[in-house]
C-alpha cells in the first residue's frame, strides 16, 4: 500500500511538471508570450550548449561550482556557529539571558540588508559574499537549535539523572539527539536562504557564478540566458535539499522508523 501511494505521488508530481512544460511550450510557441519568454527547446539547447561553450570566462558547470563553493563556505560557517550558539542558548539560561536580547534585535534584519555594510567592511571580494550568505542562514539555525535543545523532554532528563547519568552524558545522549531533528529543520531552511543569498551576492559583484549568469542575461536582454541560470539554480537547489534529506534520514533515522 505504501509503495502504491509512493508511486502515485511520483506519478502525480511528474504529470504536474510535464503540464508546466506543456503550458510553457504552447504559450511560448503560439501566443504573444513568445515576445518576452523563449520556448523550452531554446532554453534547454542553450543549457546543453553552455556545458561546453563558456558563458563569459567559464562553462555553466564551472559557474555552478563557484556558487556552490560560496554556499558551502558561508552555509558551513553559519551552521557551525549557529548550532553552537543555539544549543548553548537552549542549554544554559545564563547564555540565553546574555545572547537573546542581542539576537532578537539582529534576527529580523534580512540577510540581504547586510549587503551595503558588508561591501563597506570587506570590499567586493569573496569575504563579502561569504558574509552575506552567513547572515542569510544564521538566524534560522540558531533559532531551531535553541528550540530543539530547550524543548527536550524533561521526563527523559529526569529518568537519565536517576539512572546515574552525569551532565555530560545527559547532554550527549539525551539533549543532542532530541535537538537533532530541529537542527536539521533549521539547516534545511537555512540552506535555501543561503542559496538565495549567494545569487544576490553574485548579482552585485562577481565575474562568475549562477547569479552572475542571471545578471549577465538581464544586462544583455538575453532571456534565454536568464532562464539557463535559473534552471541550473533549481537543479542544484533541488539536489542539495535532497542530499540534506538523506543525511537527515540517516542521522535522525528514529523519526521515520515505524511510520
Amino acid at each position, binding site marked *: 500500500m505504501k509503495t502504491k501511494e509512493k508511486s502515485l505521488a511520483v506519478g502525480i508530481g511528474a504529470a504536474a511538471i510535464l503540464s508546466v512544460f506543456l503550458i510553457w511550450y504552447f504559450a511560448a510557441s503560439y501566443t504573444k508570450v513568445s515576445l518576452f519568454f523563449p520556448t523550452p527547446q531554446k532554453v534547454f539547447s542553450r543549457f546543453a550548449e553552455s556545458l561546453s561553450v563558456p558563458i563569459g570566462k567559464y562553462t555553466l558547470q564551472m559557474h555552478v561550482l563557484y556558487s556552490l563553493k560560496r554556499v558551502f563556505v558561508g552555509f558551513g560557517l553559519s551552521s557551525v556557529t549557529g548550532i553552537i550558539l543555539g544549543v548553548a542558548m537552549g542549554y544554559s539560561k545564563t547564555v540565553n539571558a546574555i545572547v537573546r536580547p542581542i539576537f532578537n534585535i539582529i534576527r529580523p534584519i534580512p540577510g540581504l540588508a547586510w549587503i551595503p555594510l558588508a561591501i563597506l567592511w570587506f570590499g567586493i571580494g569573496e569575504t563579502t559574499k561569504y558574509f552575506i550568505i552567513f547572515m542569510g542562514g544564521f538566524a534560522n539555525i540558531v533559532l531551531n537549535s535553541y528550540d530543539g535543545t530547550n524543548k527536550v523532554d524533561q521526563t527523559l532528563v529526569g529518568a537519565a539523572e536517576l*539512572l546515574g547519568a552525569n551532565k555530560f552524558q545527559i547532554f550527549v545522549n539525551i539533549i543532542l*539527539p532530541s535537538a537533532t531533528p530541529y537542527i536539521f529543520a533549521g539547516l534545511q531552511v537555512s540552506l535555501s536562504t543561503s542559496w538565495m543569498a549567494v545569487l544576490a551576492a553574485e548579482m552585485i559583484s562577481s565575474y562568475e557564478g549562477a547569479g552572475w549568469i542571471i545578471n549577465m542575461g538581464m544586462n544583455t536582454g538575453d532571456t534565454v540566458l536568464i532562464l539557463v541560470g535559473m534552471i541550473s539554480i533549481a537543479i542544484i537547489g533541488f539536489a542539495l535539499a535532497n542530499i540534506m534529506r538523506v543525511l537527515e534520514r540517516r542521522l535522525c533515522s528514529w523519526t521515520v522508523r515505524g511510520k
Partner: protein
Amino acid sequence: MDEKRVKVEVKELTKAFGDLLVLDNISFDVYDGEFLCIVGPTGCGKTTFLNSLTKVYDINKGSIQVDGEDIHPKKHNLAYIFQEYSTMEWLNIQENVEFGLKAKKFPPDKLKERSDYVIRMVGLDKYRNYYPSQLSASMLQRVVIARAFAIEPDLLLMDEPYGQLDLTLKYKLEDELLKMWKEIRTTVLFITHNIEEAVYLSDRIIVLTNKPTHIKTEIINDLPRPRKVSDPEFVALRNQVTDLIKWW
C-alpha cells in the same frame, strides 16, 4: 515484617509550595525487598511525594534515608518509572536498556549479558534491535521496566506506570513486574490510585488522605501469591481498603 531490615526511612516529611501544604508530617519505613503500594486520591500529592524522595523538590522538613544515609540520586541506586514512556527514541531497545548500566559504569564485558537477561525477562528478546517508534505501548513500558531492573536499584519508584494502559495489558504487565521483582528482589515503592492494583501487587498498602496529605492508615497485605482478583480473600481486602478510603 519485624525481622525485616529497614531499607528506606521517611521521617516527618513535610513539603509546601508557598502557603499550600502538600505533604504533612509523613513518616513510614520501607523494608528491604518489600513491594509497598501507596494509594491516594488524584491530586493528593503522590507525585510530589516521589519527587521529594528523588530530590527533584527540596523538602521543608523531615528526612528520607536509604540504608541509614540521606537519600541522593547520585549516591544511591535509584530508578524511577513514570506514567509516560521514558524511552529514548534514538536508541534501540538493547541500547535503551543498557543506558543506565553504562551511566553507572557497569563492566563492559558483562553489559550485554546483563541487558540480555532483563530483555529476556520482559519477553522482548526478538525486539532488541527495534526502535521505540516500532513498538506498542505495552512493549515500551516493558523496556522502561527492563531498564530500571537492569541496574538492580536499591529502590524502584513507580508513579502510576500503568495508568495509560487498557485492562488486559495492565494485568499482563503487572504479572511481569511481579516476576521481575521476585527474581531481582529490589525494593519497590509503587504509587497508584487503583485499589485493585495495589491489593494485587503489594506486600503492604499505605493510604494517603487528601491535601494536606498525611497517612490515613497502613494495611499489611499477606495474601498468598499468585493472587486472583476473584478470590474471596482478595475481594474482602479490596473492599476493606475501599471502605477505608471511600470518603477521601
